[in-house]
């Protein structure tokens, strides 16, 4: 893992592999990274908003649990965005297949499940 983190920061390592690609591919990769980063930032903003704008919920500390879960999910999305960016950049330089990833599907499922749980909480509160 440490090697991967070092790889994000070490310019020589990444620029030494393969050949320099058409700069437009690099820019597209960079924009994809930024779009993922904004996804993470949106989750973080959701967590911060939950922490300060949600009323106290019937379950003890549910509000705080929601906020921390969103914040950690956002941080994970941000960190995995750099990793994916670096691996994609490497693949482009080496003219290999782009890295495949289960992460988008997992993230979508987590967000959907979270939303369903909240729907259940809201309904339970309205009916109970």
């Amino acid at each position, binding site marked *: 893992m440490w090697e991967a983190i070092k790889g*994000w*920061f*070490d*310019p020589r390592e*990444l*620029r030494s592999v393969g050949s*320099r690609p058409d*700069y*437009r591919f*690099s*820019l*597209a990769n*960079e*924009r994809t*990274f*930024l*779009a993922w*980063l*904004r996804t*993470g*930032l*949106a989750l*973080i*903003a959701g*967590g*911060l*908003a939950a*922490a*300060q704008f949600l009323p106290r919920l019937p379950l003890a*500390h549910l509000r*705080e649990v929601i*906020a*921390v879960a969103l*914040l*950690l999910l*956002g*941080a994970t999305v*941000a*960190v995995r*965005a*750099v990793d994916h*960016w*670096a691996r994609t950049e490497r693949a482009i330089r080496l003219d290999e297949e782009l890295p495949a990833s289960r992460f988008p599907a997992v993230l979508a499922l987590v967000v959907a499940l979270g939303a369903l749980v909240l729907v259940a909480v809201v309904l339970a509160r309205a009916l109970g």
Partner: protein
Amino acid sequence: MSRDPGLQPERTRLAWRRTLLAVTAILVLELRLAFTGRTVDALLAGLAVVIWSGVLLVGWRRATGVGPRGPERWSIPLTALAAAGLALLGVLHVLRGLR
């Protein structure tokens, strides 16, 4: 160099600006959470401001300098780690609020 029909550098610049805007929104939400009158919360808010200024500096340099040259390697990992750092500061705020 002929004009790039896809305007890739410009799109990348705009993507950076949108991202900086999003980071600024996070900072505002975090500062609002920090107004508790307690010193530790003020310190956490100060740290958030420092991280935000760093992202703005790195991101702005990148946003104004996008061209055929590849990205400066630092701008990308630093921005992502800063976002993760802001998230962890938010977690600390929430946990402190529990007491």
